[in-house]
């Protein structure tokens, strides 16, 4: 093959590229984006709190002491557990929040993850194959779209036992169409791309094309949607808890805490505001992080996140 002109002699070939790739690159970029770093830190903090603390504080969190009811926050007189005050039954707000973190995250993350996986799989199949499969799936999605998800959840949870498992299932099922539509729309566009034809030319079967060609390009969008959904599922779970068909005491989540404090909003704002702030911050962090992740993972947009040294950019 000596007579073949080597590309390296004739075209500009970047020398061994020192730019990091994959996970290392993502971490590297994360450190350069303050908002994303802050969001990731907040979410990581919540996960640590939700996993590590509840076993130690569970008893103390549910101990009622009516002499301390609606204790104002920011005082260490009653010990650190009461630094954020107490609720209407004298339970320490801080420890209730810790317990709430676990339930809220568990319900929201599980429901979102389940809905995203199922919705994406169905959407890819629907968009890639088209035809009657697509027709049936989309009609089901349409029907589900016309039923208010809260109403459906209400009906289902009224008939079934209100439990964490049922809550997750109901929340997941009602959110599946969101991912189904997104994944389907992307699959519809992607299946016409030449690299799909190229895969077909080397003998790849349909499932392989869906898995290796389409899915990796749809995942970033689905993840963005999922992170956005995290906030609304968090609120939906809170709403169901408020209506009394979500979690049941002694389990507690942020939504239940907001609902419980409503009656005392004028006299004891902290009972409502603190869990509300937790919900808002978490939703905000999820949104910021999702937006950053989507852009950072896209090679075409990567340049926006990596400041290269002068002259370090080469012609592609």
């Amino acid at each position, binding site marked *: 093959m000596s007579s*073949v002109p080597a*590309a390296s002699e004739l*075209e500009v*070939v970047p020398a061994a590229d020192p730019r990091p790739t994959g996970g290392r690159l993502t971490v590297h970029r994360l450190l350069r984006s303050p908002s994303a770093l802050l969001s990731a830190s907040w979410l990581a903090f919540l996960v640590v709190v939700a996993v590590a603390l509840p076993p130690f504080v569970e008893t103390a969190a549910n101990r009622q002491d009516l002499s301390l009811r609606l204790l104002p926050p920011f005082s260490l007189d009653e010990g650190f557990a009461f630094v954020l005050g107490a609720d209407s039954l004298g339970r320490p707000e801080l420890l209730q929040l810790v317990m709430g973190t676990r339930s809220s995250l568990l319900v929201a993350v599980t429901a979102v993850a389940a809905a995203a996986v199922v919705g994406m799989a169905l959407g890819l199949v629907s968009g890639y194959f088209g035809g009657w499969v697509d027709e049936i799936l989309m009609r089901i999605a349409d029907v589900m779209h016309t039923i208010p998800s809260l109403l459906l959840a209400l009906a289902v949870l009224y008939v079934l036992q209100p439990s964490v498992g049922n809550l997750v299932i109901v929340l997941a099922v009602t959110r599946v169409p969101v991912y189904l539509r997104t994944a389907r729309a992307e699959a519809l566009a992607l299946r016409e791309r030449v690299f799909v*034809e*190229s*895969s077909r030319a080397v003998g790849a079967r349909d499932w392989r094309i869906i898995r290796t060609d389409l899915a990796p*390009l749809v995942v970033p969008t689905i993840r963005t949607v999922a992170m956005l959904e995290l906030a609304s599922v968090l609120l939906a779970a809170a709403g169901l808890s408020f209506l009394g068909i979500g979690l049941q005491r002694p389990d507690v989540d942020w939504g239940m805490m907001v609902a419980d404090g409503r009656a005392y909003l004028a006299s004891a704002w902290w009972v409502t505001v603190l869990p509300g702030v937790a919900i808002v911050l978490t939703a905000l962090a999820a949104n910021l992080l999702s937006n950053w992740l989507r852009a950072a993972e896209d*090679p075409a947009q990567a340049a926006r996140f990596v400041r290269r040294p002068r002259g370090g950019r080469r012609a592609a």
Partner: protein
Amino acid sequence: MQADQPGPVLEVRGLRTVFDGRGGRETVAVDDASFDVAPGQCLAVVGESGSGKSTLARSVLRLVEPTAGRVRYRGTDLTALDRRALRPYRRHLQMIFQDPYASLHPRQSVLRLVSEPWRIHRDLMPEDPCARVAELLEQVGMPPAVIDMHPTQLSGGQRQRVAIARALGLEPDVLVLDEPVSALDVSIQAQVIALLMELQQSLGLTYLFISHDLALVRLVASEVIVMHHGVFVETGTTERVFEDPRDEYTRSLLAASPHL
């Protein structure tokens, strides 16, 4: 590779591909195409845009299902096979696409792109895929350092070389080249064509070369088919067609190409 077998590698008979349009209107992209491709030959199909050249190429490989007709590869009727039975044959007939910016998956590294076909044809999986990919890259004139790069980091010419390496990894018999250089810079075109001709020589490949570039076709092809509105208007050796065009359309096509 079974290059020593007698007879044509590809026999195409009465191939017809019709697309359904809106309101029941049909578009006949390829009509009654019949030709043979001998082993080691480079058969060119020329014609203007929309003449059905690319559809012909895709129909031969059944990337587009032909409406009627037969495609025989070394005696096996590819059009009679169901999709499952066709799959093992796919490795013998590979395709190089026009636009290397579109034909390579944007998220896969060069290593993944070139080794992916072996995951489908598992009997071809080398002991050391990395080493084999590097070898293939060398064969197409690429330094082994590009193995971890993504297509976005490569130039058009480099991408097309990767696409060629990907096809060669399956040790194909026939390469269908669908305008393989028309999306590239003029300066790069010559290099890629030189590479393709060199590979044809050293590996004994058979080419079905789709192009609208008559100067290029005259350089590389031994036989030429001229297509117009889905129909073959003229067939013959390259020399004969270029020196003594018999069809009116061929004459106008040649006349429209001033640098011949």
